Protein backbone atom coordinates (compact mmCIF):
# COMPACT_ATOMS: atom_id res chain seq x y z
CA UNK A 1 0.00 0.00 0.00
CA UNK A 2 2.82 2.39 0.94
CA UNK A 3 5.72 1.33 -1.24
CA UNK A 4 3.99 -1.41 -3.18
CA UNK A 5 6.09 -4.07 -1.48
CA UNK A 6 3.19 -6.40 -0.73
CA UNK A 7 1.91 -6.13 -4.30
CA UNK A 8 5.40 -6.83 -5.63
CA UNK A 9 5.82 -9.85 -3.39
CA UNK A 10 2.41 -11.13 -4.40
CA UNK A 11 3.29 -10.80 -8.08
CA UNK A 12 6.56 -12.62 -7.45
CA UNK A 13 5.10 -15.47 -5.40
CA UNK A 14 1.85 -15.74 -7.30
CA UNK A 15 -0.22 -15.23 -4.14
CA UNK A 16 -3.15 -12.85 -3.65
CA UNK A 17 -2.05 -9.42 -2.45
CA UNK A 18 -4.37 -9.52 0.56
CA UNK A 19 -2.70 -12.70 1.87
CA UNK A 20 0.75 -11.13 1.68
CA UNK A 21 -0.48 -7.99 3.42
CA UNK A 22 -2.10 -10.06 6.17
CA UNK A 23 1.10 -12.06 6.69
CA UNK A 24 3.12 -8.86 6.97
CA UNK A 25 0.69 -7.40 9.49
CA UNK A 26 0.74 -10.63 11.51
CA UNK A 27 4.53 -10.44 11.61
CA UNK A 28 4.49 -6.97 13.18
CA UNK A 29 4.01 -8.08 16.83
CA UNK A 30 7.05 -10.39 16.53
CA UNK A 31 9.51 -7.67 17.49
CA UNK A 32 8.36 -5.51 14.57
CA UNK A 33 9.60 -8.06 12.05
CA UNK A 34 6.86 -7.10 9.58
CA UNK A 35 7.84 -3.45 9.58
CA UNK A 36 11.54 -4.20 9.28
CA UNK A 37 10.99 -6.63 6.43
CA UNK A 38 8.75 -4.14 4.69
CA UNK A 39 11.32 -1.37 4.87
CA UNK A 40 14.13 -3.74 3.84
CA UNK A 41 12.25 -4.96 0.77
CA UNK A 42 11.13 -1.48 -0.10
CA UNK A 43 14.72 -0.34 -0.32
CA UNK A 44 16.18 -3.40 -2.02
CA UNK A 45 13.51 -4.78 -4.34
CA UNK A 46 13.16 -3.00 -7.71
CA UNK A 47 9.72 -1.55 -8.33
CA UNK A 48 7.29 -2.44 -11.10
CA UNK A 49 5.87 -5.67 -12.43
CA UNK A 50 8.97 -7.60 -13.51
CA UNK A 51 7.16 -9.31 -16.36
CA UNK A 52 5.74 -6.05 -17.72
CA UNK A 53 9.13 -4.43 -17.27
CA UNK A 54 10.83 -7.22 -19.19
CA UNK A 55 8.31 -6.84 -21.99
CA UNK A 56 8.77 -3.12 -22.08
CA UNK A 57 12.55 -3.03 -21.90
CA UNK A 58 13.66 -3.79 -25.42
CA UNK A 59 17.23 -4.77 -25.97
CA UNK A 60 19.10 -1.82 -27.42
CA UNK A 61 19.94 -3.89 -30.49
CA UNK A 62 16.32 -4.23 -31.53
CA UNK A 63 14.99 -0.73 -30.97
CA UNK A 64 15.08 1.95 -33.60
CA UNK A 65 18.23 4.00 -34.00
CA UNK A 66 16.89 7.42 -34.95
CA UNK A 67 16.20 9.61 -31.92
CA UNK A 68 12.59 9.83 -30.87
CA UNK A 69 10.99 13.25 -30.87
CA UNK A 70 10.76 14.66 -27.40
CA UNK A 71 7.30 15.28 -26.03
CA UNK A 72 6.80 18.36 -23.88
CA UNK A 73 5.00 18.57 -20.57
CA UNK A 74 5.64 16.74 -17.31
CA UNK A 75 3.30 16.30 -14.39
CA UNK A 76 4.38 17.50 -10.98
CA UNK A 77 4.08 14.80 -8.30
CA UNK A 78 1.61 16.88 -6.31
CA UNK A 79 0.70 14.20 -3.77
CA UNK A 80 4.29 13.82 -2.67
CA UNK A 81 4.79 17.55 -2.33
CA UNK A 82 1.57 17.80 -0.35
CA UNK A 83 2.75 15.05 1.97
CA UNK A 84 6.06 16.82 2.56
CA UNK A 85 4.35 20.14 3.26
CA UNK A 86 1.98 18.43 5.67
CA UNK A 87 4.83 16.84 7.58
CA UNK A 88 6.75 20.12 7.72
CA UNK A 89 3.65 21.88 9.02
CA UNK A 90 3.30 19.22 11.69
CA UNK A 91 6.89 19.79 12.73
CA UNK A 92 6.37 23.56 12.88
CA UNK A 93 3.24 23.11 14.93
CA UNK A 94 5.12 20.88 17.28
CA UNK A 95 7.77 23.51 17.92
CA UNK A 96 5.06 26.07 18.57
CA UNK A 97 3.36 23.77 21.01
CA UNK A 98 6.67 23.18 22.70
CA UNK A 99 7.20 26.88 23.19
CA UNK A 100 3.88 27.17 24.94
CA UNK A 101 2.98 24.15 26.99
CA UNK A 102 4.89 20.95 27.37
CA UNK A 103 2.27 18.79 25.70
CA UNK A 104 4.69 16.53 23.92
CA UNK A 105 6.90 15.45 26.75
CA UNK A 106 6.93 11.93 25.46
CA UNK A 107 9.42 10.64 22.89
CA UNK A 108 6.77 9.32 20.54
CA UNK A 109 6.09 12.41 18.45
CA UNK A 110 9.69 13.45 17.87
CA UNK A 111 10.50 9.87 16.91
CA UNK A 112 7.63 9.90 14.46
CA UNK A 113 8.96 13.10 12.91
CA UNK A 114 12.41 11.54 12.53
CA UNK A 115 10.80 8.53 10.87
CA UNK A 116 8.81 10.74 8.53
CA UNK A 117 11.93 12.65 7.54
CA UNK A 118 13.86 9.45 6.91
CA UNK A 119 11.02 8.02 4.83
CA UNK A 120 10.89 11.15 2.73
CA UNK A 121 14.65 11.12 2.12
CA UNK A 122 14.81 7.40 1.39
CA UNK A 123 11.77 7.44 -0.83
CA UNK A 124 13.80 9.10 -3.58
CA UNK A 125 15.54 5.78 -4.09
CA UNK A 126 12.12 4.43 -4.91
CA UNK A 127 11.36 7.35 -7.21
CA UNK A 128 14.58 6.91 -9.16
CA UNK A 129 13.53 3.35 -9.90
CA UNK A 130 10.14 4.50 -11.06
CA UNK A 131 11.49 7.09 -13.46
CA UNK A 132 14.04 5.29 -15.53
CA UNK A 133 15.83 7.20 -18.22
CA UNK A 134 16.62 10.12 -15.96
CA UNK A 135 20.22 9.40 -15.03
CA UNK A 136 21.28 10.44 -11.56
CA UNK A 137 17.70 11.07 -10.57
CA UNK A 138 18.59 14.57 -9.40
CA UNK A 139 15.36 16.25 -10.36
CA UNK A 140 14.23 19.33 -8.45
CA UNK A 141 11.66 17.14 -6.74
CA UNK A 142 14.22 14.69 -5.44
CA UNK A 143 16.38 17.55 -4.13
CA UNK A 144 13.31 18.95 -2.42
CA UNK A 145 12.63 15.54 -0.97
CA UNK A 146 16.15 15.25 0.39
CA UNK A 147 16.09 18.74 1.90
CA UNK A 148 12.65 18.25 3.44
CA UNK A 149 13.63 14.88 4.81
CA UNK A 150 16.82 16.26 6.32
CA UNK A 151 15.00 19.18 7.89
CA UNK A 152 12.34 16.91 9.34
CA UNK A 153 14.82 14.39 10.69
CA UNK A 154 16.96 17.18 12.17
CA UNK A 155 13.95 18.74 13.89
CA UNK A 156 12.93 15.37 15.26
CA UNK A 157 16.38 14.61 16.60
CA UNK A 158 16.60 17.98 18.32
CA UNK A 159 13.20 17.54 19.90
CA UNK A 160 14.18 14.07 21.02
CA UNK A 161 17.54 14.99 22.53
CA UNK A 162 16.75 18.41 23.89
CA UNK A 163 13.44 17.59 25.49
CA UNK A 164 14.34 19.28 28.76
CA UNK A 165 16.77 21.93 27.52
CA UNK A 166 15.65 25.58 27.20
CA UNK A 167 14.84 26.98 23.75
CA UNK A 168 17.95 29.24 23.41
CA UNK A 169 20.29 26.32 24.06
CA UNK A 170 18.51 24.26 21.47
CA UNK A 171 18.78 26.98 18.83
CA UNK A 172 22.45 27.60 19.62
CA UNK A 173 23.38 23.95 19.39
CA UNK A 174 21.34 23.59 16.21
CA UNK A 175 23.33 26.43 14.67
CA UNK A 176 26.58 24.84 15.77
CA UNK A 177 25.62 21.49 14.29
CA UNK A 178 24.60 23.18 11.07
CA UNK A 179 27.93 25.01 10.88
CA UNK A 180 29.82 21.74 11.33
CA UNK A 181 27.73 20.10 8.62
CA UNK A 182 28.30 22.97 6.20
CA UNK A 183 32.04 22.91 6.92
CA UNK A 184 32.24 19.19 6.29
CA UNK A 185 30.21 19.55 3.10
CA UNK A 186 32.54 22.28 1.81
CA UNK A 187 35.60 20.15 2.46
CA UNK A 188 34.13 17.01 0.90
CA UNK A 189 32.36 18.66 -2.03
CA UNK A 190 35.24 18.55 -4.60
CA UNK A 191 35.92 14.92 -3.91
CA UNK A 192 32.25 14.03 -4.23
CA UNK A 193 31.85 16.03 -7.42
CA UNK A 194 34.80 14.26 -9.01
CA UNK A 195 33.34 10.91 -8.08
CA UNK A 196 30.02 11.74 -9.65
CA UNK A 197 31.60 13.06 -12.83
CA UNK A 198 33.84 10.02 -13.22
CA UNK A 199 30.89 7.72 -12.79
CA UNK A 200 28.76 9.43 -15.42
CA UNK A 201 31.70 9.71 -17.83
CA UNK A 202 32.37 6.04 -17.55
CA UNK A 203 28.72 5.15 -18.04
CA UNK A 204 28.50 7.34 -21.14
CA UNK A 205 31.69 5.93 -22.63
CA UNK A 206 30.49 2.39 -22.19
CA UNK A 207 27.11 3.11 -23.80
CA UNK A 208 28.81 4.86 -26.71
CA UNK A 209 31.26 2.04 -27.29
CA UNK A 210 28.57 -0.61 -27.51
CA UNK A 211 26.46 1.57 -29.78
CA UNK A 212 29.42 2.16 -32.10
CA UNK A 213 30.16 -1.53 -32.27
CA UNK A 214 26.53 -2.21 -33.17
CA UNK A 215 26.47 0.40 -35.92
CA UNK A 216 29.82 -0.68 -37.32
CA UNK A 217 28.71 -4.29 -37.49
CA UNK A 218 25.54 -3.36 -39.29
CA UNK A 219 27.22 -1.03 -41.76
CA UNK A 220 29.71 -3.73 -42.56
CA UNK A 221 27.11 -6.44 -43.01
CA UNK A 222 24.70 -4.54 -45.18
CA UNK A 223 25.66 -1.14 -46.53
CA UNK A 224 29.26 -1.98 -47.37
CA UNK A 225 28.27 -5.20 -49.12
CA UNK A 226 25.59 -3.43 -51.14
CA UNK A 227 27.97 -0.66 -52.15
CA UNK A 228 30.47 -3.24 -53.35
CA UNK A 229 27.73 -4.97 -55.35
CA UNK A 230 26.58 -1.68 -56.85
CA UNK A 231 30.12 -0.87 -57.95
CA UNK A 232 30.49 -4.28 -59.51
CA UNK A 233 27.27 -3.91 -61.49
CA UNK A 234 27.48 -0.22 -62.25
CA UNK A 235 26.67 -0.87 -65.92
CA UNK A 236 23.28 -2.36 -65.16
CA UNK A 237 20.95 0.46 -64.16
CA UNK A 238 18.00 -1.76 -63.23
CA UNK A 239 20.14 -3.92 -61.03
CA UNK A 240 21.65 -0.92 -59.28
CA UNK A 241 18.24 0.62 -58.68
CA UNK A 242 17.01 -2.66 -57.24
CA UNK A 243 20.00 -2.96 -54.92
CA UNK A 244 19.65 0.61 -53.80
CA UNK A 245 15.95 0.16 -53.06
CA UNK A 246 16.50 -3.01 -51.08
CA UNK A 247 19.26 -1.35 -49.10
CA UNK A 248 17.11 1.69 -48.48
CA UNK A 249 14.29 -0.45 -47.16
CA UNK A 250 16.60 -2.30 -44.83
CA UNK A 251 18.31 0.81 -43.55
CA UNK A 252 14.96 2.52 -43.03
CA UNK A 253 13.59 -0.32 -40.98
CA UNK A 254 16.80 -0.37 -39.01
CA UNK A 255 16.67 3.35 -38.30
CA UNK A 256 13.00 3.98 -37.74
CA UNK A 257 11.31 0.72 -36.74
CA UNK A 258 11.71 -1.54 -33.81
CA UNK A 259 12.51 -5.10 -34.77
CA UNK A 260 9.86 -7.73 -34.18
CA UNK A 261 10.35 -11.27 -33.06
CA UNK A 262 9.83 -13.60 -36.03
CA UNK A 263 6.55 -15.47 -36.08
CA UNK A 264 4.56 -12.97 -34.04
CA UNK A 265 3.25 -10.55 -36.64
CA UNK A 266 1.24 -10.92 -39.83
CA UNK A 267 2.19 -7.34 -40.70
CA UNK A 268 5.90 -8.17 -40.66
CA UNK A 269 5.31 -11.26 -42.79
CA UNK A 270 3.37 -9.20 -45.32
CA UNK A 271 6.25 -6.75 -45.49
CA UNK A 272 8.60 -9.65 -46.17
CA UNK A 273 6.36 -10.85 -48.99
CA UNK A 274 6.23 -7.35 -50.46
CA UNK A 275 9.99 -6.95 -50.15
CA UNK A 276 10.51 -10.19 -52.02
CA UNK A 277 8.19 -9.16 -54.86
CA UNK A 278 9.80 -5.72 -55.01
CA UNK A 279 13.26 -7.21 -55.25
CA UNK A 280 12.25 -9.77 -57.80
CA UNK A 281 10.36 -7.50 -60.15
CA UNK A 282 11.95 -4.15 -59.45
CA UNK A 283 8.65 -2.30 -58.98
CA UNK A 284 8.05 -0.28 -55.81
CA UNK A 285 5.03 -1.32 -53.75
CA UNK A 286 3.44 0.84 -51.06
CA UNK A 287 2.36 -1.07 -47.96
CA UNK A 288 -0.20 0.12 -45.41
CA UNK A 289 -1.09 -2.07 -42.45
CA UNK A 290 -3.84 -1.55 -39.88
CA UNK A 291 -3.90 -3.86 -36.89
CA UNK A 292 -1.93 -7.03 -36.43
CA UNK A 293 -2.25 -10.57 -35.15
CA UNK A 294 -0.23 -13.69 -34.64
CA UNK A 295 0.20 -15.58 -37.90
CA UNK A 296 -1.24 -19.06 -38.36
CA UNK A 297 -1.70 -21.47 -41.27
CA UNK A 298 -4.69 -19.64 -42.67
CA UNK A 299 -3.06 -16.22 -42.65
CA UNK A 300 -0.06 -17.86 -44.30
CA UNK A 301 -2.42 -19.01 -47.07
CA UNK A 302 -3.84 -15.52 -47.30
CA UNK A 303 -0.33 -14.13 -47.70
CA UNK A 304 0.41 -16.64 -50.48
CA UNK A 305 -2.70 -15.44 -52.31
CA UNK A 306 -1.59 -11.85 -51.65
CA UNK A 307 1.74 -12.68 -53.18
CA UNK A 308 0.07 -14.00 -56.33
CA UNK A 309 -2.07 -10.88 -56.58
CA UNK A 310 0.99 -8.69 -56.09
CA UNK A 311 3.02 -10.48 -58.73
CA UNK A 312 0.06 -10.16 -61.05
CA UNK A 313 -0.27 -6.43 -60.36
CA UNK A 314 3.43 -5.83 -60.74
CA UNK A 315 3.65 -7.79 -63.96
CA UNK A 316 0.53 -6.65 -65.75
CA UNK A 317 -0.46 -3.42 -64.04
CA UNK A 318 1.27 -0.08 -63.87
CA UNK A 319 2.88 1.37 -60.75
CA UNK A 320 2.23 2.65 -58.18
CA UNK A 321 1.10 -0.65 -56.74
CA UNK A 322 -0.32 -0.52 -53.25
CA UNK A 323 -1.19 -3.16 -50.67
CA UNK A 324 -3.51 -2.56 -47.76
CA UNK A 325 -3.85 -5.09 -44.96
CA UNK A 326 -6.51 -4.63 -42.32
CA UNK A 327 -6.84 -6.95 -39.36
CA UNK A 328 -10.30 -6.49 -37.93
CA UNK A 329 -11.91 -8.27 -34.99
CA UNK A 330 -13.39 -11.07 -37.08
CA UNK A 331 -11.85 -10.73 -40.51
CA UNK A 332 -8.52 -10.10 -42.20
CA UNK A 333 -8.74 -8.16 -45.45
CA UNK A 334 -6.10 -7.50 -48.08
CA UNK A 335 -6.45 -5.12 -51.03
CA UNK A 336 -3.94 -5.10 -53.85
CA UNK A 337 -4.35 -2.20 -56.26
CA UNK A 338 -2.50 -1.17 -59.39
CA UNK A 339 -2.97 1.50 -62.02
CA UNK A 340 -3.06 -0.76 -65.05
CA UNK A 341 -5.69 -0.89 -67.74
CA UNK A 342 -7.37 -3.75 -65.95
CA UNK A 343 -8.55 -7.03 -67.38
CA UNK A 344 -11.73 -9.00 -67.64
CA UNK A 345 -11.64 -12.18 -65.65
CA UNK A 346 -13.59 -14.05 -68.33
CA UNK A 347 -11.10 -13.08 -70.99
CA UNK A 348 -8.11 -14.19 -69.00
CA UNK A 349 -6.11 -16.53 -71.21
CA UNK A 350 -5.10 -19.91 -69.94
CA UNK A 351 -1.50 -18.97 -69.31
CA UNK A 352 -2.72 -16.46 -66.75
CA UNK A 353 -4.70 -19.06 -64.95
CA UNK A 354 -2.90 -17.89 -61.80
CA UNK A 355 -5.59 -15.42 -60.88
CA UNK A 356 -8.48 -17.81 -60.89
CA UNK A 357 -6.75 -20.78 -59.36
CA UNK A 358 -4.09 -19.46 -57.03
CA UNK A 359 -5.99 -16.43 -55.76
CA UNK A 360 -9.71 -17.11 -55.93
CA UNK A 361 -9.48 -20.89 -55.52
CA UNK A 362 -7.03 -20.61 -52.69
CA UNK A 363 -9.16 -18.11 -50.82
CA UNK A 364 -12.26 -20.33 -51.20
CA UNK A 365 -10.39 -23.32 -49.80
CA UNK A 366 -9.33 -21.21 -46.84
CA UNK A 367 -12.95 -20.32 -46.20
CA UNK A 368 -12.63 -16.77 -47.45
CA UNK A 369 -13.32 -15.13 -50.76
CA UNK A 370 -11.60 -12.99 -53.37
CA UNK A 371 -12.96 -10.47 -55.83
CA UNK A 372 -11.23 -8.84 -58.75
CA UNK A 373 -12.48 -5.46 -59.83
CA UNK A 374 -11.15 -3.86 -62.98
CA UNK A 375 -12.01 -0.28 -63.79
CA UNK A 376 -10.55 2.69 -65.59
CA UNK A 377 -8.25 3.63 -62.73
CA UNK A 378 -6.72 0.19 -62.42
CA UNK A 379 -7.35 -3.26 -61.05
CA UNK A 380 -8.03 -4.05 -57.43
CA UNK A 381 -7.96 -7.51 -55.92
CA UNK A 382 -9.78 -7.80 -52.60
CA UNK A 383 -9.15 -10.80 -50.33
CA UNK A 384 -11.27 -11.53 -47.27
CA UNK A 385 -10.49 -14.15 -44.67
CA UNK A 386 -12.82 -14.57 -41.68
CA UNK A 387 -10.82 -15.39 -38.56
CA UNK A 388 -11.52 -16.08 -34.94
CA UNK A 389 -10.98 -13.13 -32.70
CA UNK A 390 -7.67 -13.13 -30.90
CA UNK A 391 -7.50 -12.83 -27.14
CA UNK A 392 -4.79 -10.23 -27.22
CA UNK A 393 -5.41 -7.42 -29.66
CA UNK A 394 -2.70 -4.93 -30.20
Amino acid at each position, binding site marked *: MLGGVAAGLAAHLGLPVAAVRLALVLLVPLGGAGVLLYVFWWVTVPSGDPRAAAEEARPAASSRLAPR*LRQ*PGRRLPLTEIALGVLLLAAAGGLIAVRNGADLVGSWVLPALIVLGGLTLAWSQLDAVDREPGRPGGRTPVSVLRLLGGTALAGTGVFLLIGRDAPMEDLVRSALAALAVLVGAALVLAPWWLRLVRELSDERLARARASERADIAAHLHDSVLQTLALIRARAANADEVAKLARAQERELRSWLYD*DRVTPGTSVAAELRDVVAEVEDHHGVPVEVVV*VGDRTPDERTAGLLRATREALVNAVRHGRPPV*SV*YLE*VGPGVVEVFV*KDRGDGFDLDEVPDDRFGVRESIIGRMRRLGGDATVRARAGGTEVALRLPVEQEERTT
Partner: protein
Amino acid sequence: MSESQRPGGEPLDVVVVDDHLMFRTGVKASLDERVRVVGEADSVDTAISVIHELRPPVVLLDVHLPGGDGGGGAEVLRRCADLAGEVRFLALSVSDAAEDVVAVIRAGARGYVTKAISGPELSAAARRVAGGDAVFSPRLAGFVLDAFGAAADVATGDDELDRLSAREREVMRLIARGYSYREVAGELFISIKTVETHVSAVLRKLQLSSRHELTRWAAARRLL
Protein backbone atom coordinates in the same frame (compact mmCIF):
# COMPACT_ATOMS: atom_id res chain seq x y z
CA MET B 1 -5.09 13.98 -57.69
CA SER B 2 -7.19 17.05 -58.03
CA GLU B 3 -6.02 20.33 -56.62
CA SER B 4 -7.65 23.46 -55.42
CA GLN B 5 -7.28 26.09 -58.09
CA ARG B 6 -5.60 29.31 -57.10
CA PRO B 7 -7.01 32.35 -58.83
CA GLY B 8 -4.74 34.50 -60.93
CA GLY B 9 -2.21 31.73 -61.59
CA GLU B 10 0.25 33.30 -59.12
CA PRO B 11 2.97 30.87 -58.07
CA LEU B 12 2.67 29.55 -54.53
CA ASP B 13 5.43 30.66 -52.16
CA VAL B 14 6.89 27.95 -49.93
CA VAL B 15 9.72 27.68 -47.42
CA VAL B 16 11.65 24.39 -47.35
CA VAL B 17 12.93 23.26 -43.96
CA ASP B 18 15.33 20.32 -44.02
CA ASP B 19 18.78 19.79 -42.60
CA HIS B 20 20.11 18.19 -45.78
CA LEU B 21 21.25 20.60 -48.48
CA MET B 22 20.97 17.81 -51.07
CA PHE B 23 17.33 17.27 -50.26
CA ARG B 24 16.48 20.99 -50.33
CA THR B 25 18.15 21.29 -53.72
CA GLY B 26 16.27 18.24 -54.94
CA VAL B 27 12.92 19.62 -53.78
CA LYS B 28 13.58 22.96 -55.45
CA ALA B 29 14.44 21.26 -58.70
CA SER B 30 11.47 18.90 -58.67
CA LEU B 31 8.69 21.38 -57.81
CA ASP B 32 6.74 22.55 -60.83
CA GLU B 33 6.58 26.15 -62.05
CA ARG B 34 3.51 27.02 -60.00
CA VAL B 35 5.37 26.56 -56.71
CA ARG B 36 8.22 28.91 -55.82
CA VAL B 37 10.74 28.35 -53.02
CA VAL B 38 11.25 31.68 -51.27
CA GLY B 39 13.28 30.55 -48.28
CA GLU B 40 15.17 27.69 -46.71
CA ALA B 41 16.19 26.66 -43.22
CA ASP B 42 18.24 23.79 -41.85
CA SER B 43 17.47 23.65 -38.13
CA VAL B 44 14.69 24.25 -35.63
CA ASP B 45 15.93 27.71 -34.68
CA THR B 46 16.64 29.00 -38.19
CA ALA B 47 13.29 27.59 -39.34
CA ILE B 48 11.40 29.52 -36.68
CA SER B 49 13.11 32.81 -37.52
CA VAL B 50 12.81 32.34 -41.30
CA ILE B 51 9.13 31.42 -41.06
CA HIS B 52 8.36 34.38 -38.82
CA GLU B 53 10.21 36.70 -41.17
CA LEU B 54 8.79 35.49 -44.49
CA ARG B 55 5.36 34.24 -43.37
CA PRO B 56 4.95 31.94 -46.39
CA PRO B 57 1.55 30.40 -47.07
CA VAL B 58 3.09 26.90 -46.98
CA VAL B 59 6.10 25.40 -45.22
CA LEU B 60 7.50 22.01 -46.27
CA LEU B 61 8.79 20.77 -42.95
CA ASP B 62 11.10 17.85 -42.24
CA VAL B 63 10.10 15.80 -39.20
CA HIS B 64 13.64 15.13 -38.02
CA LEU B 65 15.49 18.38 -37.51
CA PRO B 66 18.49 19.24 -35.37
CA GLY B 67 18.59 22.14 -32.93
CA GLY B 68 16.09 23.59 -30.49
CA ASP B 69 15.12 21.31 -27.63
CA GLY B 70 15.34 18.16 -29.75
CA GLY B 71 11.65 18.25 -30.65
CA GLY B 72 12.32 18.30 -34.41
CA GLY B 73 9.56 19.39 -36.76
CA ALA B 74 6.94 19.17 -34.03
CA GLU B 75 8.84 21.78 -32.04
CA VAL B 76 8.90 24.16 -35.04
CA LEU B 77 5.14 23.74 -35.29
CA ARG B 78 4.59 24.45 -31.62
CA ARG B 79 6.81 27.54 -31.65
CA CYS B 80 5.12 28.87 -34.80
CA ALA B 81 1.67 28.43 -33.28
CA ASP B 82 1.21 32.23 -33.29
CA LEU B 83 1.09 32.11 -37.12
CA ALA B 84 -1.75 29.59 -37.17
CA GLY B 85 -4.16 30.27 -40.01
CA GLU B 86 -1.61 32.31 -41.90
CA VAL B 87 1.13 29.72 -42.42
CA ARG B 88 0.28 26.09 -43.12
CA PHE B 89 2.63 23.18 -42.71
CA LEU B 90 3.12 20.02 -44.76
CA ALA B 91 5.29 17.47 -43.00
CA LEU B 92 7.90 15.52 -44.96
CA SER B 93 9.85 12.63 -43.63
CA VAL B 94 11.97 9.66 -44.56
CA SER B 95 10.53 7.91 -41.54
CA ASP B 96 7.26 6.01 -41.69
CA ALA B 97 7.18 5.47 -37.94
CA ALA B 98 3.74 6.12 -36.47
CA GLU B 99 4.95 8.07 -33.47
CA ASP B 100 6.83 10.57 -35.65
CA VAL B 101 3.84 11.11 -37.91
CA VAL B 102 1.36 11.47 -35.08
CA ALA B 103 3.70 13.87 -33.27
CA VAL B 104 3.83 16.38 -36.15
CA ILE B 105 0.16 16.06 -37.02
CA ARG B 106 -0.83 16.59 -33.39
CA ALA B 107 1.46 19.63 -33.34
CA GLY B 108 -0.55 21.16 -36.18
CA ALA B 109 0.75 19.99 -39.59
CA ARG B 110 -1.94 19.90 -42.30
CA GLY B 111 -0.61 16.76 -43.93
CA TYR B 112 2.13 14.23 -44.13
CA VAL B 113 3.99 12.79 -47.09
CA THR B 114 7.14 10.71 -47.35
CA LYS B 115 10.21 12.06 -49.09
CA ALA B 116 9.86 9.45 -51.82
CA ILE B 117 6.99 11.52 -53.26
CA SER B 118 7.40 12.72 -56.85
CA GLY B 119 7.81 16.39 -57.74
CA PRO B 120 4.39 16.91 -59.34
CA GLU B 121 2.68 15.14 -56.44
CA LEU B 122 4.56 17.26 -53.91
CA SER B 123 3.58 20.42 -55.80
CA ALA B 124 -0.05 19.33 -55.83
CA ALA B 125 0.11 18.48 -52.12
CA ALA B 126 1.58 21.92 -51.33
CA ARG B 127 -1.23 23.63 -53.26
CA ARG B 128 -3.80 21.48 -51.52
CA VAL B 129 -2.43 22.49 -48.12
CA ALA B 130 -2.37 26.15 -49.21
CA GLY B 131 -6.06 25.83 -50.09
CA GLY B 132 -6.79 24.81 -46.50
CA ASP B 133 -7.26 21.12 -47.21
CA ALA B 134 -5.51 18.21 -45.58
CA VAL B 135 -3.07 15.91 -47.36
CA PHE B 136 -3.37 12.29 -46.36
CA SER B 137 -0.98 9.74 -47.78
CA PRO B 138 -2.18 6.11 -47.73
CA ARG B 139 0.10 5.50 -44.82
CA LEU B 140 -1.25 8.38 -42.77
CA ALA B 141 -4.78 7.11 -43.44
CA GLY B 142 -3.61 3.71 -42.18
CA PHE B 143 -2.26 5.30 -39.01
CA VAL B 144 -5.56 7.08 -38.43
CA LEU B 145 -7.52 3.86 -38.82
CA ASP B 146 -5.12 2.08 -36.53
CA ALA B 147 -5.29 4.79 -33.89
CA PHE B 148 -9.05 5.25 -33.91
CA GLY B 149 -9.77 1.56 -34.32
CA ALA B 150 -10.51 0.24 -37.79
CA ALA B 151 -13.62 -1.69 -36.81
CA ALA B 152 -16.93 0.05 -36.26
CA ASP B 153 -16.83 1.82 -32.93
CA VAL B 154 -19.13 0.38 -30.30
CA ALA B 155 -18.53 2.97 -27.59
CA THR B 156 -21.08 5.49 -28.79
CA GLY B 157 -21.02 7.45 -25.56
CA ASP B 158 -17.59 8.83 -26.38
CA ASP B 159 -16.85 12.40 -27.24
CA GLU B 160 -17.54 13.11 -30.88
CA LEU B 161 -13.87 13.98 -31.37
CA ASP B 162 -12.79 10.52 -30.35
CA ARG B 163 -14.60 8.64 -33.09
CA LEU B 164 -14.64 8.58 -36.84
CA SER B 165 -18.02 8.62 -38.50
CA ALA B 166 -18.85 5.68 -40.74
CA ARG B 167 -18.29 7.87 -43.81
CA GLU B 168 -14.97 9.21 -42.57
CA ARG B 169 -13.80 5.69 -41.87
CA GLU B 170 -14.87 4.63 -45.37
CA VAL B 171 -12.91 7.53 -46.90
CA MET B 172 -9.86 6.67 -44.80
CA ARG B 173 -10.02 3.04 -45.84
CA LEU B 174 -10.13 3.93 -49.51
CA ILE B 175 -7.22 6.33 -49.19
CA ALA B 176 -5.27 3.65 -47.33
CA ARG B 177 -6.01 1.28 -50.20
CA GLY B 178 -4.26 3.67 -52.57
CA TYR B 179 -7.23 5.56 -54.00
CA SER B 180 -6.73 9.18 -54.99
CA TYR B 181 -9.26 11.76 -53.76
CA ARG B 182 -10.89 11.66 -57.20
CA GLU B 183 -11.19 7.88 -57.11
CA VAL B 184 -12.60 8.01 -53.58
CA ALA B 185 -15.21 10.47 -54.76
CA GLY B 186 -16.14 8.20 -57.68
CA GLU B 187 -16.30 5.12 -55.50
CA LEU B 188 -18.58 6.68 -52.89
CA PHE B 189 -20.64 8.76 -55.36
CA ILE B 190 -19.76 12.03 -53.65
CA SER B 191 -17.96 15.14 -54.88
CA ILE B 192 -14.24 15.71 -54.43
CA LYS B 193 -15.10 18.69 -52.23
CA THR B 194 -17.01 16.36 -49.91
CA VAL B 195 -14.03 14.00 -49.76
CA GLU B 196 -11.84 16.97 -48.83
CA THR B 197 -14.31 17.96 -46.13
CA HIS B 198 -14.23 14.47 -44.65
CA VAL B 199 -10.44 14.38 -44.72
CA SER B 200 -10.18 17.78 -43.04
CA ALA B 201 -12.62 16.63 -40.37
CA VAL B 202 -10.47 13.57 -39.71
CA LEU B 203 -7.38 15.75 -39.48
CA ARG B 204 -9.12 17.95 -36.93
CA LYS B 205 -10.06 14.93 -34.85
CA LEU B 206 -6.52 13.62 -35.05
CA GLN B 207 -5.21 16.95 -33.81
CA LEU B 208 -7.76 17.75 -31.16
CA SER B 209 -8.94 14.40 -29.84
CA SER B 210 -8.11 14.09 -26.20
CA ARG B 211 -8.40 10.35 -26.61
CA HIS B 212 -5.66 9.15 -24.34
CA GLU B 213 -5.40 5.96 -26.33
CA LEU B 214 -4.00 7.91 -29.26
CA THR B 215 -0.81 8.76 -27.44
CA ARG B 216 -0.68 5.39 -25.79
CA TRP B 217 -1.19 3.75 -29.14
CA ALA B 218 1.67 5.70 -30.71
CA ALA B 219 3.93 4.67 -27.86
CA ALA B 220 2.76 1.07 -28.07
CA ARG B 221 3.65 0.94 -31.76
CA ARG B 222 7.23 0.60 -30.59
CA LEU B 223 6.33 -2.79 -29.17
CA LEU B 224 4.86 -4.10 -32.38
